[in-house]
């Protein structure tokens, strides 16, 4: 128990009203003034001095503490970055979380933590951090982008598209144009994966309007436009690239593919030829070029051909297909006995469907084609085909049927067969 004592005189005299009052009373009973005894003043002065010293010391300790925390936060943050680079998102998340515990208000740490959590597929945790960040900065591009990736992982197309859009329109600190272009690419790819071709087309069109400046990005855009069936725009982009850099083999190759998609074989062949010329190491372009040249060589429907040439090409196509069929049936060990049913004379493999159910073993498509080929073989000659344009079509149809039927059974094929198969796949589009 404290004993409140004072060594001062028995009474105080109030400095305001002059009244005497007991020494153990702090307050003058007459006027209510606090009796500022010498000891009170000293205590107050010492208290103030101690508070001042306390302020200075606390400031020092706080500064030291904050420096330690900042250093630790940074160390854990760097560790988190290393873990992310090593594709260890769980470890990175733990490191980022530790960094955040030392600097809870650091949005960068929180964002990296959220990104690590998204990468680790811990989407609920990531969402909570992102929500917190988003509330602070709803227009932050990176936060919106991470949110978009989170929803993309969840398969929530609506929210993913919404946040991608927010990210595109959001604030970016460094090179905003490039970031926006990248995000639109990402969004377009996401939409394409989700088979939302129309939406992807509109995003790519927006990219086209506010085009990427890097040739690599332009090529990427051309490629994606090609994937969403916009080859005309791919050609536009490639022409733009080639205007600035006519020796860009990649642009030539992509242009060739776009022209091919547009069935402009001649132009495509020229484009591939340019691509190979500028970069002979482009294997794909070389293969495409060879194929196109072969197509152009064997295609009987190409414009400007004389009737004789057309017949000659059709006959050659027929024989190529016949040889292909023979080689394939040999590889597969198929018995080529002629079918007994009269309907088996039909050359088209589709005819197999109408084979009489009463036959013991229904003929295979290759058998049907073989028997059809045997029947046609004698009639498919240059002379006969020159006289009868319908026979040209029939011979070509047979060749296409053979190539289609054998493509899956015997994948190994020569260039002529590849060309025929190519024509078979484009038979309804005609040669431009």
């Amino acid at each position, binding site marked *: *128990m404290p004993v409140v004592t004072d060594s001062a005189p028995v009474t105080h005299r109030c400095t305001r009203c002059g009244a005497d009052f007991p020494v153990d009373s702090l307050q003058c009973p007459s006027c*209510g003034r606090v009796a500022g005894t010498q000891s009170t003043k000293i*205590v107050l002065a010492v208290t103030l001095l101690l508070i001042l010293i306390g302020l200075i*010391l606390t400031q020092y300790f706080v500064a030291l503490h904050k420096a330690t925390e900042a250093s630790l936060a940074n160390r854990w943050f760097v560790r988190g970055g290393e873990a992310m680079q090593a594709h260890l998102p769980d470890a990175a998340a733990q490191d980022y979380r530790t960094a955040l515990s030392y600097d809870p208000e650091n949005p960068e740490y929180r964002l990296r933590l959220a990104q690590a959590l998204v990468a680790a597929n811990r989407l609920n945790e990531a969402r909570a951090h992102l929500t917190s960040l988003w509330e602070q900065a709803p227009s932050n591009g990176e936060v919106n982008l991470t949110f978009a990736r989170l929803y993309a992982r969840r398969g929530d197309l609506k929210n993913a598209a919404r946040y991608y859009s927010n990210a595109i329109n959001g604030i970016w600190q460094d090179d905003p144009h490039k970031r926006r272009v990248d995000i639109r690419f990402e969004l377009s790819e996401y939409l394409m994966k989700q088979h939302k071709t129309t939406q992807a087309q509109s995003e790519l069109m927006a990219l086209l309007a506010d085009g990427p400046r890097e040739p690599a990005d332009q090529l990427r855009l051309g490629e994606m436009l090609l994937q969403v069936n916009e080859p005309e725009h791919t050609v536009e982009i490639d022409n733009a690239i080639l205007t600035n850099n006519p020796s860009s083999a990649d642009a030539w190759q992509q242009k060739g593919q776009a022209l091919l998609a547009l069935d402009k074989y001649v132009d495509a062949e020229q484009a591939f030829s340019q691509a190979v010329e500028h970069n002979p190491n482009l294997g794909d372009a070389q293969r495409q070029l060879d194929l196109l040249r072969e197509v152009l060589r064997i295609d009987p429907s190409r414009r400007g051909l004389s009737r004789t040439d057309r017949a000659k090409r059709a006959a050659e196509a027929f024989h190529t297909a016949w040889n292909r069929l023979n080689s394939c049936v040999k590889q597969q060990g198929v018995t080529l006995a002629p079918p007994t049913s009269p309907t088996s004379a039909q050359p088209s493999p589709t005819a197999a469907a109408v084979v009489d159910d009463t036959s013991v073993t229904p003929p295979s498509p290759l058998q049907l084609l073989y028997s059809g080929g045997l029947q046609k073989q004698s009639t498919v000659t240059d002379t006969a085909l020159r006289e009868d344009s319908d026979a040209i079509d029939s011979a070509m149809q047979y060749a296409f049927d053979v190539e289609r039927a054998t493509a899956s059974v015997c994948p190994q094929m020569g260039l002529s067969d590849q060309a025929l198969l190519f024509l078979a796949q484009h038979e309804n589009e005609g040669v431009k």
Partner: protein
Amino acid sequence: MSPQEAIAKPQDGSALKPSVSTPTRRQYWSTLRTMLSPQRFSLREEQFFLLLAVLIGIASGLSVVCFRICIDFLHLKLLGSGLQPSVPRVFLAPMLSGLVIAFLVIRFFPRARGSGVNQTKAALYIYDGYIPMPTVVGKFITSALAIGSGQSLGPEDPSLQIGAGLASALGRRLKLSREKLRLIAPVGAAAGLAAAFNAPITAVLFVIEEVIGRWTAGILGAVVLSAISSAVVERWFLGDEPLFRVPAYHLEHVGELGAYASLGVIGGFASLIFVKYVAYLRPKLRELPPWTQYFQPAAAGLLIGFIGIKFPQVMGAGYSYMDQAMHEQYTWQILALLGVLKIVSTGLSFASGTPGGLFAPTLFMGAMIGGAVGMAEHQIVPYLAIPVGSYALIGMGTLFAGILRAPMTSVFMILEVSGNYSIIVPVILSNAIAYFISRTFQPTPIFDLLSRQDGLDLPSLEEERELPLLRVEDAMRPPIGQDLTGRMTVKEAQEHVQGSAQEFFVVGLADDEWSGISRTNLLEMTPDSDLPLSEVLTARIPYLHPDHPLDTALRLIGEWPLLPVIHRANLRRLLGVVSLDDVMRAYRGAGMGETHTEPAPVVP
């Protein structure tokens, strides 16, 4: 012209030459001295007390900032910088620290034991506000070591005691009166808590609800001032970020309240389990031989270390993990498990006598249990769009209301730490349910329980609230026969009282004043006097209103045989009279369990 003007505008450029009309430099300084003299700035005691409150707030704020830094420093040194400490550290740090803490507490700082709330309350009610300075130092060291080493305790209650101890020391040095010395400890307590929590309103409410026990205007200003000063200091040094980053929440549908009500029920029973567990374990450990007390904190530390290997979240105050719970970083199973483990580990730490607080562990339990309930409800009722963070936040308030039984504080604490006032309805609902459950099955609140285990009987606001408040209307009787007015002449009055058996009459005078006269005195007056009673009766009698507490009647009645009870809207209308006997009868009746007593029989 003022002295300043005289110096600023010298005439004829003779600034340095004093003239008759221009004050001299000496006169100027004399005037200035007069203006700044101590007499001019002398303070009344109330003002001086407020000034002290500010100083106490600043000093407490500084101490608490240092205390928190000390805890962080020790945590870093003992458990390392990672969130997942290594196994040897988890085992050794709390155990070895426990040995040191036990030695320090038993040998040097015996009063540093426990949370600090009851010790402050005891200082207020038993020791005239006296908290020894060594206790403050001991509390600082041992609590920092305990929390920093991973014991499952919090820094708030020790901060409260540190603040109270500093205030008490200052009050003693200033030789404050006994009354003021008693009051100054809660002022420091509020300051300490405000700095620890970064929540001044919560601190003020808690000190009033739990430490002082009643709302008294005399101290409220000082408590508020000290809490604010302390919070300002804390924010100055450590920043003004809220304790938790709470996700945005809006009550979308009234049906959501059902979800929060279920949280209130679960939180209420969880609170009950914790309180019962501590109430059982603490005396059991105290009954063990005295030498075991040297090892009890170490044993608690060892067990907590076992838990901490797999769940380091339960070690220490755990604020960062509460934040994680709010951000859905655990599954509901993990959250529930963490809630249970925290109950176990906090009970162990606290019952073993390790110094440290219950605030943070209570909030931790609440956050985990709230989060678990929220996530489980999301799985059961997927269309409920309430963020888990809201459940965690409301869970904190729920457990706070259920365990610490400070319902007002629990509501305002959530509002203050979240800064979101739209959450108030769910908070009140859930807290009220938890409070009700806890009170029903555990009538004595935890702090009262602990103080009684320590052999102290400290007043409890909750128990005082239970007592019926007697009012004047419970004791007054009808004013039958009390018909004298100030306008009556003495003769009329004498005639009037002639046949009355009343011994004393209250007399309504003009200007809403009342007086009274005994029958004997009235009859002894000269009968032929034409003077009205209002001129004869000079003494004024205090009056009461029916809603006044009966205590007011006791204070005012003095030597008067009767006091008038009058209408509040018409101060001349007599509703009844009350005598000392009436008052005592009412009190006796209340003591026997009667809420209303029959008034004394009226003598016509």
